């Protein structure tokens, strides 16, 4: 319903999916904002974020031979707010300030949210690789 209401504002020169994500995100955040739990959700576990130097070779290996399709499937498995943060940054190319405004976050938390989303994405990609490896093993 929300998408139908907003379709009149869609700029056809812009990517549809990003726009769709944005509408959905705004709607969700509106609801969360009303319940006054948005900030709690966004900042929960910030202290638990790993502040470390990941192994570049492992990351390279994970990204190796990953297709766009794999990436999209992994994105689809992410929690909605993480997926939205990645879409706003790497698809609509919003600045951190714009993302903060769009998601109703404090500016300082945007980086944290993006980093956490990347970690979740890697976990999803790793899960895909494991299941594909297992399937290949069963096939042999």
């Amino acid at each position, binding site marked *: 319903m929300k998408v*139908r209401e907003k*379709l*009149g504002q869609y700029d056809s020169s812009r990517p549809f999916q990003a726009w769709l994500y944005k509408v959905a995100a705004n709607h969700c955040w509106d609801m969360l904002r009303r319940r006054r739990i948005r900030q709690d959700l966004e900042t929960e576990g910030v202290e638990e974020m790993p502040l470390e130097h990941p192994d*570049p070779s492992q990351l390279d290996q994970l990204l190796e031979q990953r297709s*766009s399709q794999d*990436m999209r499937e992994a994105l689809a498995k992410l929690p909605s707010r993480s997926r939205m943060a990645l879409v706003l940054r*790497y698809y609509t190319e919003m600045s951190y300030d714009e993302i903060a405004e769009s998601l109703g976050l404090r500016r300082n938390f945007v980086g944290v949210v993006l980093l956490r989303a990347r970690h979740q994405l890697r976990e999803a990609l790793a899960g895909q690789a494991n299941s594909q490896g297992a399937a290949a093993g069963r096939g042999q």
Partner: protein
Amino acid sequence: MSQIDNSGRGRNEGHVDEMSCLQYLEGLLERPRALEFSAHTEQCSDCRALLRALERESKLLSFALREQEESVPARLLAGPARERTPWGWIVSFGLAASGAYWVWTSIIDPWQAQLAQAGFGGSDLLSTVFIQSALWKGWDTMWTMVQALAVISLGLVGFLLLRRTLRRWNTIALMMTVIVAALALPLGVSAIECHKANTNYTLPADRVVHDDLLVSGQTVRIDGTVDGDLFIFGQNLTVNGHVTGDVISAGSMLTISGTVDGNVRASLGVLNIHGKVGKNVMGFTGTLLAESQSEIGWGAILYAGDATMDGRIGRGITGRMGHASLDGFVGGDVSIKANDSFDVGPHAQLLGKVQYTGPSQPAVAAGARLSNPIDVNIEAKTSNPDYIFSGMSLWHKLLFWGASFIFGLVLLFIAPGFFNETVQTADRFGVSLGVGALVMIATPVLACIACFTVVGLGIGISTALLYLIALYGSKVFFAAWLGRGIFNWGRSKAGTAGPSEQQSFRTVTASGAMVGHLALGLVILYAVRIVPYVGFWLAVMAVVWGFGAMSITLFSRMRHGAAAI
């Protein structure tokens, strides 16, 4: 969070953390930290590798998202377009257009026709009123001045709007405008003989005034001759002599026993005509008595509480009265709307058509001679509950609502800043009402005073016209204020208003929302107006309130200069 860990613990040993890498890639690190980071990565292959991996991840992410671009299905775009048809606007404009059409066909056009019947002629109302001097002999010369004043007013408004950028020139512009206005103001009214008497004034029978004569006093008696127009104001006014021009009068009672070659235009408690009027009589009077020996050469336009016309009227009669009585000769058509009753006496001789609208059948005496049967239109009194709640009354109110709404829309879109500010000013209940009452009374008084000064006739008339427009507009501001208050109250009850909005309604409202507020407020205003007596006084209060808010806003803007309108 950017840090290069030299503690030698875990994977962070001597390396930068991932968050810092990301911020570096995004160009978000401050310059000193970015330089430190860059220097480190030049030496540290592990960190360089991490940077490359993260960059690759970002590109892959972007590519994956962009690759999936697709066009929007046409059916999705087409569906909502139909739903977005602005029915509210269509209905509002339709009602407004219907209202305008109704006002023209029901009020202006019939009046125009009736004016023509009464001998005022003219191809249109404007030319009748202004050009052909029906209401004011001096209009021919005044018209040029009115045009000049209109241009000057527009210039003033323009300078007001540009005041911020033309501040230094503003004073000069105003001075120039005043000079131009002074030069353009009427020369025609300078040739006039004025007399102001504290108690009595009498123009002797043997005296002839060869100019226009303006007289005011408690008792004024004109026994002599005025070779021009006579302006006469006071309590007991009598014209026994001869006036070659028009008589313009205001006061308690005017008796015309002599001869007036021109027109009589009067706003009086009582107008009593014994003598002869060469042209037309136009009167706004409590009582009009045209006695049997009286003679009106042309026609009569009357708005009177009680009108008795027993004399001779060369052409027609048009008017609205409480009670009307005809018992003399009328050469033209008669069109009368009476709130109470209409009598035709035994000596009446009506040559033209007679059209009557009123609450009951007219009483026609046996001896009356009518060329045509009276066209009677029985219409219930507007104060009658049956009429108030009739479909026609409600339809009229709907049309008036449409007209007010469209007026408000024009105001809102021409000057949204002023509109919003006025609505906010209306929050100040007491001040708005007080200032409104004061300005509403003072403005017409000042306009009248201006009319009687040498330089002020045009200014007075222009002020009066603007005053009428402002009176109409004031209810629009009040309605928008009322609608906004109800909207905000509803939102606060529903819990959707922010804390600041709950504390105060004094928030600037977007034009779209203001349109909704205006529509709702006008509906309530017209609905309340239906309630007998109370509704009338509430409507008066709304007008005073809105007028006050508008006056305060205008005054504030004139003092501080116009911001964005």
